[in-house]
């Protein structure tokens, strides 16, 4: 299979995602790099599946095509770098039949500077940085990494998040330390966190008015047959995005973020009997994931959806409303947080 060949005679760049793109003219790309302050001649890569690297000019061309402002480029580059870390498993993510794809979570003062939406409809339409940062990553995975739907990107269904998914944590309305502080960064530092995820699943609870009540609904939504986190639990990072209202209810009872994560570990569980011969757990032969929690358990043992209470990823995002979100991670992948350069 020949690698996609740029047709020099074209006056409009072909669109990777089917939507119109901004033409990456030399003038636009050079101005983009200039205003972004990027002068590096370094290449980024190699990217699986193509094993190719890309120059800053090529990456900028993709960001321009996606509609990014030059001020977003640092977030784009840092997010791309983060997904190249071995533990992120981009190699498996880009090719998989699963719907999983990298999601970008931004923390720090840059959220306000770039006006990245962390509030109402943060996972939806309507915000240029949210829409175009995620889209730029998707373009690089398609144009540079060679993830071509149907040929090398083998997603059975894919999902709307594969057009690009970038959000910011709603740090101002979170009762707890933000994600990047939890991971050892200073509150004033800017970071991206990348997490392989499927499209989010709504957790609606308009009734519960205690921490345990809200989280009981949440864990019921998170412990389901068919989610990758249920079976690939050895490295899974089940992600709970709490709305500010749900977070406030939980915090009102004095619960810390660690308490939330511990509750997920303790109660988002499925019995060993229910797990067997479903999903990715086959007892008929040796074909099954040998994740640690399942080994040698009795029928009535409740199996957690991750290996330890530290593994759930909990953040606050969204606006008004008593809804939270569950994002099931790819499973065999670990999220990565990096400083934005």
């Amino acid at each position, binding site marked *: *299979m020949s690698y996609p*060949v740029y047709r020099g005679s074209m006056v409009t760049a072909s669109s990777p995602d089917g939507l119109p793109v901004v*033409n990456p003219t*030399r003038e636009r790309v050079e101005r983009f790099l200039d205003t972004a302050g990027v002068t590096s001649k370094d290449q980024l890569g190699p990217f699986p599946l*193509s094993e190719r*690297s890309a120059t800053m000019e*090529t990456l900028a061309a993709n960001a321009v095509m996606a509609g990014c402002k030059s001020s977003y480029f640092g977030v784009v580059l840092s997010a791309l770098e983060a997904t190249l870390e071995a533990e992120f498993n981009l190699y498996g993510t*880009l*090719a998989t039949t699963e719907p999983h794809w990298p999601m970008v979570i931004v923390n720090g003062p840059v959220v306000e500077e770039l006006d990245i939406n962390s509030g109402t409809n943060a996972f939806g339409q309507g915000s240029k940085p949210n829409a175009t940062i995620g889209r730029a990553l998707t373009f690089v995975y398609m144009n540079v990494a060679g993830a071509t739907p149907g040929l090398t990107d083998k997603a059975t269904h894919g999902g709307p998040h594969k057009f690009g998914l970038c959000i910011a944590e709603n740090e101002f309305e979170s009762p707890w330390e933000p994600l990047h502080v939890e991971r050892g960064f200073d509150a004033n530092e800017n970071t991206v966190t990348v997490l392989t995820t499927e499209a989010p699943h709504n957790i609606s609870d308009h009734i519960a008015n205690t921490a345990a009540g809200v989280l009981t609904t949440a864990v019921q939504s998170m412990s389901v047959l068919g989610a990758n986190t249920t079976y690939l639990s050895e490295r899974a990072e089940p992600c709970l995005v709490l709305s500010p209202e749900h977070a406030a209810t939980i915090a009102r009872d004095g619960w810390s973020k660690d308490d939330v994560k511990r509750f997920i570990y303790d109660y988002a569980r499925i019995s060993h009997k229910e797990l067997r011969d479903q999903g990715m757990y086959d007892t008929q032969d040796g*074909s099954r994931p040998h994740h640690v929690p399942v080994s040698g358990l009795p029928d009535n043992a409740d199996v957690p959806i991750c290996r330890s209470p530290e593994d759930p990823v909990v953040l606050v995002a969204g606006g008004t409303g008593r809804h939270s979100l569950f994002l099931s991670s790819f499973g065999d992948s670990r999220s990565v947080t990096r400083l934005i350069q």
Partner: protein
Amino acid sequence: MTSQDEEILNPFADEIEAKGTVLADRLSTVDSVRIGLFSNTKKNADYFLREVGAQLEADYDVDVSEVVYKDVATSAADEDIYEELLGYDAVLIAYGDCGSCSSWTMHDSFQLEEAGVPTVVFCTEEFTTLCQYEAENQGVPGLPIVEIEHPIADLSPEAVASDRVTDDILTSVTEALTTDPEVLVDLYQGKYTGAASSELV
């Protein structure tokens, strides 16, 4: 300058890194050799491998291993699994029947070939293009990828043996293990990706 004259930059990367992966030397014969069976844990992969192994043992003086499993299909095998597999004269790997498992099956094959153990990768027809694309990008276009019919995961073990392990597959296996790497390039380069290239614009 009109818009017709504006230079549009190429959004594609234009150079492949030199990975340096090489195919291992092949065997002079499949007689008197020890062949390892390596499952990536995908459903029925072990039944498929056992049947291939049984038929090889019926036809040749080969010693076929018990099935060796890695922990999970969606990432690389642990080093101790590679160490164990390096003890065989050749390794049969099954199989690619999804995206991430295909990628990591190819990765396992690259590691073993690099270490000098000839391999055969089995892959269902839906994923041969992906597997060969990766082999080509790793610099090993001759890596033998033997195609099997898709789907295979929901067949009974008996049907796996009777319907999926064909004479053509067994011929391909022995050919892949005993044919010089230069000739394997002629046999495999573009075998699956060539047909797919016309789908790319």
